[in-house]
């Protein structure tokens, strides 16, 4: 939290360097973590200001406009992003490159986590990973820890109208579809390459056939879907639904501790592995305080910050660095790599064409 008058006063008194960090503000745990980070960074002469946005694509739209106008300096010093938003900013040349050279702690990054690709596009040092996400379901009641798609269908039919997933192209919803696509095709190697016209229909057919069966058993008979993972979690808490989705393996524990979700909720994997990807920090080319922003990234990748971030009583977000003591790493689900980004476009388009009329 920063209020300008107070902030300007203290900043000028202590000559702090301000860093405006645009980041999703919907999670209390993340917000608290950033408050803690801001306190730590004060000692380094940095005033970290969390600009809470409802959707980081608002900031991305702003940066793309600034970039199109070749503006010299902009409002954003640092942002938290991944996926489509990164692709767009990278393609527009709106991000500062060669980050690892400017961030000493980047040597700590664990190269085995697969963060070098962000949803199928190489990061090329235009962003550095901040944490790891693993897609899984949150389900009410005594369930096995893993289910095949067929078992999930059975679960849906034994209790119709109680399950759902966020509406694609919301990225949790799309991820659910990607996972089904992989599982229903037994991880066919072609899914990890750019889709060829000859294979598209054959590989996508099982997915659509499955959804034809699943949708009538879902909440509102599959004619309406939650708009976001957060909304679905609220519906789960309110008893409307029996499942939600999450990318953060530590989220359930913190939500249950805060009594945001009931204790009867358990994590569930579809298939044997969890789709794993990372979320990142990046500095726009227009950042007015780029050096301080890089210093913030450096802090975020330090052992202290990463440890605090994955602490079970806080955000619980999985770390991205190698630990001097390997036991410090939080347990992960087995990682499932992403299908090729071309398949993602296809399923998003075809899903809309089929189910949104």
């Amino acid at each position, binding site marked *: *939290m920063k*209020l*300008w*008058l*107070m902030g300007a006063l203290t900043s000028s008194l202590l000559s702090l360097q301000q860093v*405006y960090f645009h980041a*999703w*503000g*919907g*999670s*209390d745990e993340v917000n608290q973590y950033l408050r803690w980070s801001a306190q730590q960074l004060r000692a380094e002469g940095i005033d970290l*200001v969390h*600009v*809470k*946005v*409802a*959707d980081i*694509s*608002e*900031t*991305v*739209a*702003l940066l793309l*406009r600034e970039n*199109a*106008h070749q*503006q*010299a*300096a*902009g*409002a*954003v010093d640092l942002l938290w992003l991944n996926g*489509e*938003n990164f692709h*767009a900013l990278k393609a527009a040349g709106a991000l500062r490159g060669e980050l690892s050279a400017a961030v000493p702690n980047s040597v700590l990054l664990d190269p085995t986590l697969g963060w070098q690709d962000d949803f199928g596009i190489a990061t090329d040092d235009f962003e550095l990973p901040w944490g790891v996400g693993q897609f899984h379901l949150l389900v009410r009641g005594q369930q096995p820890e893993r289910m095949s798609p067929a078992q999930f269908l059975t679960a849906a039919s034994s209790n119709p109208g109680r399950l759902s997933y966020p*509406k694609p192209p919301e990225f949790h919803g799309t991820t659910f579809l990607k996972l089904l696509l992989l599982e229903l095709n037994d991880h066919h190697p072609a899914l990890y390459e750019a889709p060829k016209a000859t294979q598209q229909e054959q590989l996508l057919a099982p997915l659509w056939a499955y959804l034809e069966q699943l949708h009538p058993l879902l909440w*509102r008979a599959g*004619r*309406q*879907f939650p*708009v*976001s993972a*957060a*909304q679905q*979690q*609220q*519906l789960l*808490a*309110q*008893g*409307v639904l029996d499942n939600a989705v999450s990318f953060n393996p530590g989220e359930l524990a913190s*939500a249950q501790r805060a*009594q*945001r979700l*009931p204790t009867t909720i358990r994590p569930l994997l579809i298939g044997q592995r969890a789709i794993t990807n990372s979320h990142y920090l990046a500095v726009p080319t*227009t950042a007015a305080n780029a050096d301080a922003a890089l210093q913030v990234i450096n802090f975020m990748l330090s052992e202290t910050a990463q440890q605090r971030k994955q602490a079970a009583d806080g955000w619980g977000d999985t770390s991205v660095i190698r630990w001097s003591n390997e036991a410090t790493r939080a347990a992960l689900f087995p990682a499932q790599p992403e299908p090729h980004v071309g398949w993602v476009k296809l399923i998003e388009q075809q899903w*809309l*064409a089929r189910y*949104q*009329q």
Partner: protein
Amino acid sequence: MILMTLQHHWRSGIAVGLLSLPWLLVLWFGLQQLLQAGDYVGAWLAYPGLLTMISYSAGVALAILLIAWIALLSLQPVVATRGWLIQIIALPHVAFAIGLLWLFAPFGWLWRLLPEVWQFSFFDRQQLVSFVLILLVKEIPFLWLMGQRALAQIPWQRWLLIGQSLGHSRQRSWWLLVMPELLRRLRLPLMIVVIYSLSVVDIALIAAPQTPPPLAVQVLQWQLDTQPYAQHFAAYGAILLVLLALLACLLVILVERFTITQLLPRWGDFRLRFPVTSVVRLLGLAAAMAMVAQSIAIGWFYPQLWPNDWSFARWQAELPSLTGLFVQSAAIAMLVASLSVAWVVLLLEWRRRKAIPGLSGLLLIPLLLPQLTALLAWQGPLGQLTGGGAAWVYGVAFIAVQIPYSAAYAYLILAPAERRFEQRLVTVMQSYGYGFWSSWWLVKRRILQQPLLLAWVFAALVSMAQYLPIILMGGGRWPTLTSELVAISSGANSQLLAIFAVSQWLLAWLFLVILAWPQPTIEGEQR
């Protein structure tokens, strides 16, 4: 003489220039989008669910228009009521929708009280009916308030006497003499309510169907989409929304004409009562109470009637930052409101001297256009000025972009009262040797005190509810209760959301207390 004439032209020239410049920028931006290489119209027309989106938006607007119109016709019993209207208007939109759904939708709190056989789900999340109902409960108090304002400006009680002296019953005189004038005066507020229902995004995301969503939601989603085609789709969608809005305005006029010429002359001795006057009040208060309860509830899961625990701990933890935000939001809203009202007053005085072509239209454009379109269009030139600058530079920028939105409402409220003002009262003051603006201050401000205050309060409420200008133009330098509330509402923490919603409600409520100050009624307003 020529000099004076030039002087007048100079004023209206500046007015038209300042008023149209922002929209010319938007037009330029829109044209760029449309003319850029690549024809996307075909692909856009084939976008899945486009027709359904349009029919949702049009259907909602039509339903709102018809029901709001009935609510206007049944204004009579509401003439005297006062306090509760503004309290419902003050409720933050999103929190209000969330509160109502949490109370009444399936698995909601009141739903839990019902025996199983009575549990029905006509009011559910992502359902057109609930979307329309929530909009109505929120907008009808606004229409009634505007109706009360309009009545304050016409000597309707004398008109009723005249009608009675001509041998009509009191009720028939109301239909024949008062209602036509009232409908004419409420044309703009009715248009605004209908256009709002076309363009609203935040409530639609919670209450309206999403597969597909109403058009406005999809336009925003396209705008935030980074695919190359998406910006074009958004531009087409925005144009379609504007066309729908124009169509809705036309429909409002047609309905008004039909009512005045065909319906009212035939209506006899009956009183139209909006059946849910007290229901509207009850719903508003219930939503507010639901919010307050959620803000102190810990662990409130289905099917429990009560939460595991009540606690003020979270309030206490947030209080230091809430206090700062509260003061900052109030200061911003007051500044924007004062500037907006001053700007509208200046324009109205200029209009007294020389007609300003298209004044109403130019001032009301902000209510017609999707805000994100306008903000992205302004971002170019404004960003060059603010880019990386000091916090106050960003402050100037986002205050400037808020003014059109606040000024639109200020104008809506102030203009009808100003039009009826006897300007020669100011001339008389000038003839005593006072300058124009001191005459204005000593006489006109005093006589138009009520509409001026109402305009100021509405301008402040509009400013208080802004989110995108804070993020896009303020660069995040100036957080407010609303910007934090919107960010939090994108998450799953209902307690934190409720805390911010209640704080925002308190602030809005404080502004409205200003209106409740007892003020002597001045005969001059009613001529």
